[in-house]
């Protein structure tokens, strides 16, 4: 299991740790993280990548819409020299193929497929066969396959589904005068498995 994010500044508070004690992403499985824009999906993704490269693993990011910001990643603690970045120019089909190649190639600790900016209609058109193929490819490997999107689409192929939403935006200073964007408070709910025993992470970036 992979620890999602642990750190002094970027902390995850596990509300019900007994239901999900390891608080991480399962290896050899497909994990979905979904939520709307500015909900904190990218922060969660970068935290996972920082943890993986911190353990000297090599990460791969399949960036469907070329939205990755290396400066943000470096600031989040991602060692960029341990990251393979594949830019797919807005083509979700290419992103799927690239993720498949990376998982089949093996040796990556974390493979992230970022479909967060892919239109929902396009993401919905991804066939279940493709998701099954990805799930089968990552099975029995030490790789964590993380898919970031706006809505969950992998359905039964995902072993873990997390919904991310923003609780509030943290501003400081006087509005209209010296206001400063401090960060966002992010809430993570587990939707699968066992939605009844869902766990909430309170991810706060300040």
């Amino acid at each position: 299991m992979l620890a999602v994010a642990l750190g002094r500044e970027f902390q995850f508070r596990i509300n019900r740790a007994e239901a999900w004690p390891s608080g991480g992403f399962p290896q050899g499985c497909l994990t979905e993280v979904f939520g709307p824009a500015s909900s904190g999906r990218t922060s969660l993704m970068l935290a996972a990548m920082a943890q993986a490269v911190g353990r000297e693993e090599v990460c791969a990011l399949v960036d469907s819409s070329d939205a990755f910001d290396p400066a943000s990643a470096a600031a989040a603690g991602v060692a960029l020299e341990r990251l393979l970045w594949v830019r797919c120019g807005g083509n979700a089909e290419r992103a799927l193929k690239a993720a498949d190649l990376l998982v089949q190639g093996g040796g990556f600790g974390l493979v992230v497929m970022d479909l967060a900016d892919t239109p929902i209609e396009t993401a919905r058109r991804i066939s279940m066969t493709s998701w099954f193929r990805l799930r089968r490819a990552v099975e029995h490997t030490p790789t964590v396959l993380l898919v970031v999107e706006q809505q969950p689409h992998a359905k039964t192929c995902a072993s873990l589904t997390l919904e991310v939403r923003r609780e509030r935006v943290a501003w400081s200073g006087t509005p209209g005068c010296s206001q400063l964007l401090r960060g966002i408070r992010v809430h993570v709910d587990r939707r699968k498995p066992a939605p009844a025993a869902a766990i909430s992470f309170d991810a706060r970036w300040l």
Partner: protein
Amino acid sequence: MFAAIHGDGDAEKLLKLAQEFSPWVERTTADTVALDVDGLERIYGLPQEIAAALARRAAECRLKASVAIAANLDAAVHAARGFAGVSVIPHGDEAKFLGSLPLTLLEPTPEMRETLERWGIRRFRDLAALPELGLAERLGPQGLRLYQLARGAGDRLLVPVDEPLHFAEETELEYPVELLEPLAFVLARLLHSLCARLTSRGLAIAGLRLRLLLENRGEHARALRFPVPMLDASVFLKLLHLDLSANPPPAPVMRVWLEAEPAKPRAAQSGLFIPISPEPEKLELTLARLKSLVGDENVGSPALLDTHRLGAFQMLDRPRPLAPAQRAPTPRPLAASASLRAIRPPRPARVQMASGHPVHVQAEGVRGHVVSSAGPWRTSGDWWTTDPWARDEWDVALSDGALYRIYCEQGRWFVEGSYD
């Protein structure tokens, strides 16, 4: 057992001829080469047959050469230089066999030669018949050496030619090949041959150079460099196939030339507690496949540039494995930072301002009233270059629920990305 070939042709041809039979070849003089033929009896049989094979091959190469075989290296060399045709010197009969040769073959110094001539010594047998002790007293170590050579009892070791390693294979096709699949068969044969040659020398391949001679008399050249030396013909074939798929030759291929750059093989010791990382061969193949899928410039490892310009980065070829000395024992602590999702290129926007603050933002896919904003953050840089930049940045929360970074540069507004 040693063989010597003496010819009056091209010295390089003699050398190549000898190298066809043995890897241990000495360039004795400009017109004579010697080679170690131990083990060749398993292929050719008796020494006479080895000598005959050498002579036959020399004739095929149109070289006028004399061949000699002996248990002693110098005896073989002198016999090849002194007798025409094929000579096989039986072990122990060297002195008798070489007896009729003139002393000039031993290349004595002028003084020594004059002395020996005054003594009436003109042939090997004359010198070999002299008493060894007396000769050593009168002519010293040099005379003793000539005496040993004349008796065919020299103890010199073969000094093999240290030729620069060159691994290349080529083939001419019977008919022009247009498709990649049949060309792959040809490449596979050349690669297997190259890999076998390198394996026999304990080497691996650090790079491949492919040259295709085309039907229109043009040439199509490709070069592949590998981050670590590898020796897997199937991986090379896949990489060449992917490269040629992305950069196909413009005309049918008539001739294929493939050269390998040799390197010492990679020695890696894996361990139970070493973090997982892609195997170099598989990573190379995966990168090649990804590049053929999304393009060369879209695959790599990002690296930040030493500038304050936002969004400035470069793409390196591949992730760099950390050297053991670089490895940190504990993971790096996470630092607080804004996570921006970039919009590339920045999207032009229309921004309404009121009291110096943005109140409405509209761009492709972005539209809403500004709920809250922070800024402006005035930044500039590179004013000393031809590409300066200066802009006012704003962080805005829109009514659509998202947080954006917008900026104004030279009176034009752009949406740079969203905070996520």
